[in-house]
């Protein structure tokens, strides 16, 4: 099977964030970036399927030059090649615009399956890979926790999480787009050999024109939504009493407050 994996590079979830000067997004300077968590699981699922079927994995990502590092990691883990939509015209789009550009890049090659994470840890629209499916006209499933290739390799048996603790088992015909959730497998680590081999693997950087797209019809220019500002969530209620001091003294103070002030423990 030939499998495309869509990866996003996002700020490390542990990182301290500062609102950028223009107030419209965060300040990216000195910010550590990683591969989006659920996308790492999508990559692992793709590598496993490719190994089982003597196929190959191609990693796709849209983003600025820093994204090259995420693609290098995917190559080190076993992807055969990568496609980086780095042209400035592609950037700043909403999920539907980004999905359309990724689909145009994916369409240039022949794939049996597109795998991606269910949601990014930064914008979190949970819509980009679904938009890829819509552009390609392929069936898709979101929040998938189990992927099994059926006999004949023409369909997948998927387990999809639904509300209230019920999972749905379904079959989709290939080609399809499958959006997996974090935790469904055990992502591998890159070997030294893999890291060395990655340096020789091809990374394509197509422009909008290479994909047959008008630069005015991609990225921010093509988006039907825009972020006009970001801010800290408003403080709700009376506010928090912060207990100062080192851990032992804060702990003693907290226990006293819980007993005598809040009266929630004996």
């Amino acid at each position: 099977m030939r499998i495309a994996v869509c990866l996003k590079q996002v700020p490390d979830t542990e990182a301290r964030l500062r609102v950028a000067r223009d107030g419209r997004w965060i300040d990216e300077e000195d910010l550590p970036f990683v591969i989006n968590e659920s996308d790492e699981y999508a990559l692992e699922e793709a590598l496993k399927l490719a190994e089982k079927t003597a196929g190959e994995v191609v990693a796709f990502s849209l983003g600025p030059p820093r994204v090259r590092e995420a693609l290098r990691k995917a190559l080190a883990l076993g992807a055969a090649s990568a496609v980086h939509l780095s042209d400035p015209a592609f950037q700043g789009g909403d999920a539907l615009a980004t999905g359309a550009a990724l689909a145009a890049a994916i369409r240039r090659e022949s794939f049996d399956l597109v795998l991606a994470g269910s949601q990014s840890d930064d914008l979190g629209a949970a819509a980009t890979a679904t938009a890829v499916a819509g552009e390609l006209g392929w069936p898709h499933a979101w929040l998938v926790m189990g992927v099994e290739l059926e006999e004949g390799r023409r369909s997948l048996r998927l387990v999809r999480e639904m509300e209230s603790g019920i999972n749905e088992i379904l079959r989709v015909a290939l080609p399809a787009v499958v959006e997996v959730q974090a935790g469904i497998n055990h992502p591998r680590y890159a070997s030294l050999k893999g890291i060395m081999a990655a340096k020789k693997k091809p990374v394509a950087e197509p422009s909008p024109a290479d994909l047959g797209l008008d630069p005015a019809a991609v990225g921010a220019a093509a988006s039907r939504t825009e972020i006009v500002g970001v801010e800290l969530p408003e403080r709700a209620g009376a506010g928090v009493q912060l207990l100062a001091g080192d851990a032992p003294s804060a702990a003693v103070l907290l226990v006293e407050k819980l007993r005598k002030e809040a009266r929630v423990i004996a």
Partner: protein
Amino acid sequence: MWIVLQHRDGQFHRGSWEAIAAGQKLARELGSAAEAILLGENLGALVSEAAGSALAALRVAESHALAVYTPGAYVSALASAIASAAPRVVLFPHTYQSTEYVPRLAQATGAALVTEAIAFSVEGPEIEWRRPVLGGKLHARVRARGQAPVLATLQSGAFSAEEREAGRAPVESFAVPGSTAPDREILGTEQAGGEMVDLSQAEVVVAVGRGVGGSDKFGPIEELARLLHAEIGASRPVIDSGWLPRDRQIGSSGQTVAPRLYLALGISGAIQHLVGMKGSSCVVAVNKDPSAPIFKIAHYGIVGDLHEVVPALVQALRGEAS
């Protein structure tokens, strides 16, 4: 403007009532009328239940293709309805189901998509939506560009179902396009994770987040829970990492708790988690990051490493007990 209701096995998803309340409010502010949309088959009782709301219409489409949700049938039914009636805004409860198909509906109708909205404000002709980003550490204000309709999914708990205005909505049926080949075959359902621990009745909950760092770090946390007669719960990343079983998950995709005391250890406080615990009487947050949103709703907070604070709490509880 429209509200698309969600139901399963003869019951409405609770987010449907929140969406109706939000839709009534938005319609008032826009000076327009709110209509609800119901898709399915043999909907009888659901129709009368939904019609008890103050709405300009309840539009119902019944078809065998809509008996069980599939993205293909839902997108096809709603896309043709949206194309003919051209609502300016369509609201959906933000659920696993709507998240799966609404982006394709936006593509099919040329609409703008806003997912997981937690608030809106109307300024002149414009609607500004607010949604959490970066795990809830920040809120983004989002606007649609141009004249396209807006499809918005509403985060559960962000709007109160109790504000829904009752009334009597006229019921109208509408036709959906003939069924095309289904995009998926439903093979069945299964219960996730077998036997469930019921956290909803717990008086005290010790909840751990990603900050706990690993499944080998639970010793002192278990000791603290034992001293407080507490159940242990967790936010989603802990479950996804396999550090605790899924029936310990608290939040929009897990259980809802309302204990007397809720200790949030290393939990940043994404809204998906907050909706599952906001009924707690007293909330204590321990987190290294002073800007973590959990501190916004906590009553007491300690900014520090939970691996230092938890053993200190165990000691404080023991020390004063002896």
